[in-house]
């Protein structure tokens, strides 16, 4: 999707993402912040998004993720204040070690994905990122549903076994 194509549907995407954020936050300011953040993320990756696919569904998923991230940040701030006041923190704060581990696993996932054939990777991502059903993928790609299931299964098994192997090391 080109930047100008994205700009054409930006208002529609923004309205949908704002609705998701308003459902989640009581504060309109928080909802606006989250929507802005989600729009920025979509803008950054818009050239990697296939415009013929379910962009609205993807936008909703991104908005939900941004809501959760914002919510976590707010909780961490509350924890920090609680610690400053020597109160018991309401949730455990993610330690730097946890953060490093998360970054490592993400890097590992990217490396494993690179092992897949381009078609396998495409189908795998369609399910993973866009949350499309086999039928929807079939409609968009023209591949029969049985073939899609077989290819997705093959891709998943490859990734799973590789991840298991790497995680044991």
């Amino acid at each position: 999707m080109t930047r100008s194509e994205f700009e054409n549907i930006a208002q529609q995407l923004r309205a949908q993402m704002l609705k998701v954020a308003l459902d989640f936050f009581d504060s309109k300011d928080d909802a606006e912040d989250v929507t802005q953040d989600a729009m920025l993320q979509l803008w950054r990756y818009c050239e990697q998004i296939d415009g013929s696919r379910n962009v609205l569904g993807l936008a909703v998923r991104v908005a939900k993720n941004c809501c959760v991230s914002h919510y976590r940040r707010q909780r961490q701030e509350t924890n920090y204040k609680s610690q400053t006041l020597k109160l018991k923190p309401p949730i455990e704060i993610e330690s730097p070690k946890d953060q490093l581990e998360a970054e490592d696993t993400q890097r590992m996932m990217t490396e494993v994905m690179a092992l897949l054939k381009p078609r396998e990777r495409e189908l795998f991502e369609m399910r993973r990122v866009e949350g499309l059903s086999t039928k929807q993928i079939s409609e968009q790609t023209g591949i029969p549903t049985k073939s899609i299931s077989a290819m997705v299964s093959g891709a998943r098994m490859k990734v799973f076994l590789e991840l298991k192997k790497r995680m044991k090391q």
Partner: protein
Amino acid sequence: MTDKEIQQLIDSYLKGTTSPEEERLLAHELLRHDIPEEWKAVRLMLGELAMGEAEYDNIMANRKKKATVITLHRRWIAAAASLLLIIGIGATLWWTANDNVTTVETLVAQAGSVKVSQQPKIEEMKKEPVEMKKKAETVDSMKIIKEQYRMPRPPKHYLAQVETTEPELMDEEEQIERAVAEELRQMEMEMMAQMKASMQSDFMEITNEIRQRGERVTQRVEMALNDE
């Protein structure tokens, strides 16, 4: 969901036979911290977007659950409060109504007995003018009625005000009527303050009934006094 069910869902996922809804459910189940290493690999495969979405849905579901519990608690509290209010008002009305009837009946009876007890005195006062005798009897019985209807005395600093505002030469009967009316009005005001808007119509009916009852009682007192 049991561990066995989760494992079955993971197997279906790896076979590529799960629907997006089932994958959402799986992501929701894998949000737990205490999961086996194998399952962590599946969590990674589901991806950040799916896990974030599951967490979003989870938080929203928890909020709804809490909101429902709070609403239910509020409803119970409101129901209990209404019940207590109804019982309280009912008891007050019953007690007040009974007390009024008993008091007035006692008064009427006493008024009668006063008449009888005053009989020897009246005999003694045969020589006195009739008007004087009647006046003496009325004053005595009025004193007794006033005793019965005596309102709780206000604090001293109010007393002066009350005494100055009331006319000094007020008719005794009028004073009693006023006292009864005042008592009924105060009772009405107190209960009205407790009533909710929705209950006011029922309450007004009860109040009217009590007012009519009070008026009947006042009439009976007047008749008893007139008989004297």
